[in-house]
């Protein structure tokens, strides 16, 4: 991911490499200069290690044990937790659902976000207002909004079905049926994430020099080609950032699902995050919950590494 931004790129581009300040230890001032970078990064590095990296490692370790919630000694159970989650129907369902949910939200959010950014950016007047309105979903508190959506998608009297009724379609049991519940929470996920990617693309479009576009237009290059061959490559950092944020957002679907469907009916909208929560803090099976959580971490790391290779292309490192 974003390997093109790694320090080495810039260093090669720098005309004159700056002298690495490495004086032989002497006065306090020079010693400080030497150690300042270490001191300055330490708080971030130590806290990230304690609160992000270490818990991820502990999740992996915990997945091999039975863990009493109240504290006390762990007992080693080998692969039992993994066997348990892979033989458990609802857990399997949650894994499949998470894959579907991710694909169903990440890609449409990116496409719709880009389309909204392009449409808003092409306005001559009211650009800022339109942008602000389109960004509103990102400001929503999802616990609060999920409830508004619960109401909008209510089977009887909800506005979604009222609209369907107006065009003569049969009402859909958006939240209460196993066929539609995952789709409905995904729609809400797209509603939110697309507004965020819109903002990133919108900011990215501002970094594309207008002259570049003009020149291409003069050459008679069509709008689509301009977008694919000029605009997107020039704003590649924004594209990468939007992809990263879309993935992060899709992982944070917990709130929406928990409030709107709580994974139901019959686990049809259960995701790994809500399932791990349920196993850990409702069934008190922390070991199995750790195993499931670690699967999610492993999957994200795999996606991250793959994305890094794909997006970096034949780039550095």
């Amino acid at each position, binding site marked *: 991911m974003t390997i093109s931004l790694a320090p080495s790129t810039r260093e090669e581009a720098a005309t004159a490499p700056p002298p690495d300040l490495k004086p032989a230890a002497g006065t306090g001032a020079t010693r400080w200069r030497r150690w300042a970078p270490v001191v300055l990064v330490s708080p971030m590095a130590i806290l990230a290690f304690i609160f992000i990296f270490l818990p991820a490692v502990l999740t992996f370790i915990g997945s091999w044990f039975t*863990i009493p919630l109240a504290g006390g000694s762990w007992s080693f159970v080998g692969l039992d937790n993994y066997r348990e989650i892979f033989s458990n129907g609802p857990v399997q369902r949650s894994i499949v659902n998470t894959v579907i949910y991710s694909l169903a939200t990440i890609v449409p959010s990116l496409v719709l976000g880009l389309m909204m950014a392009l449409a808003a950016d092409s306005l001559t007047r009211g650009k800022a207002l339109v942008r602000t309105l389109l960004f509103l979903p990102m400001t929503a*508190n999802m616990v*609060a*909004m999920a409830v508004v959506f619960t109401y909008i998608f209510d089977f009887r009297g909800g506005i979604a079905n009222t609209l369907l009724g107006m065009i003569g379609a049969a009402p859909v049991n958006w939240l209460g049926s196993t066929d539609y519940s995952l789709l409905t929470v995904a729609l809400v996920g797209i509603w939110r994430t697309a507004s965020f990617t819109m903002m990133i693309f919108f900011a990215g479009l501002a970094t594309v020099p207008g002259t570049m576009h003009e020149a291409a237009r003069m050459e008679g290059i069509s709008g689509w080609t301009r977008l694919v061959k000029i605009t997107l490559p020039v704003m590649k950092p924004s594209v990468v950032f939007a992809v990263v944020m879309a993935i992060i957002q899709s992982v944070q679907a917990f709130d929406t699902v928990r409030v709107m469907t709580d994974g139901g009916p019959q686990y049809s909208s259960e995701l790994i995050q809500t399932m791990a929560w349920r196993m850990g803090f409702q069934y008190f099976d922390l070991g199995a919950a750790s195993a499931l959580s670690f699967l999610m971490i492993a999957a994200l*790391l795999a996606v991250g590494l793959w994305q890094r290779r794909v997006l970096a292309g034949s780039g550095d490192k």
Partner: protein
Amino acid sequence: MRATIRIGKWLFLAAALVISFFPFYWMARTSVAGHDEVFSAEFSFLPESITFEAYARAWTDGALGNAMLVGLLVTFAILALQLLTCIPAAYVLAMHRRRWTGKLFGFVLLCLLIPGQVTMIPLFIGINQFRLGDTLAALILPFATSVLGTFMIRNQMMSIPRALMEASEMDGLGPVRTMISVVVPMAKPGIAAFSVYSIFVHWNDYMWPLLAARSPEIQTPPLALAIFQDAATGFDYPALAAGAAIVTVPIIIVFLVAQRHFVRGMSGTEITG
């Protein structure tokens, strides 16, 4: 052909605006509608009568005043800690070259891929082991730094010419003074963008407070709202919508105030010029 694309674009934009805005309208509409009307089968775009009693109910029953205070405290404590830890780290990662900076940045990217949602079990156990369970510290400490913040601010700092930093060091400014008076002012958009994002996330965070805060005194706004969708007492839609409106307004204000910087800093990285 051109005209078709134009019309299509307008239709798309109009639809996007309606869909983005509608739930907010519906939230406002529900909050002022009477309890009976909310459950009537007839759909009407405008409420038949307007009453603000749901706001009073939301404020008192949900103890929203206290929740907002806690939310404010937690959100800004987190933001302050994050800026204090992320800015210096980003400065070093962007401006200094040591053997370990590349590796450290790799570590930041690695951590960026680990979602907080799946590390909650060790965090929960750890917080309780240190007897911090159900305290304000438990709500704040796990987010004292942010790898996303380090990443975003570093990327913004990459667009600052290194010569500027070298010149400042030549002038005898130490690394810290260089960071504060030269680098930070130029990285403002990135810092602002991250700050707004952090405020959004932590003001609205539901999952961790649900685990870490049990006492009513330290309930954050999302936890307070969840009271109105308690199955035992039945859904109180108007109060919930009113509460939602109360909780959302501060965030929208934050966004409107910081909007200009936010948009500039959002582009991902390296805006030249």
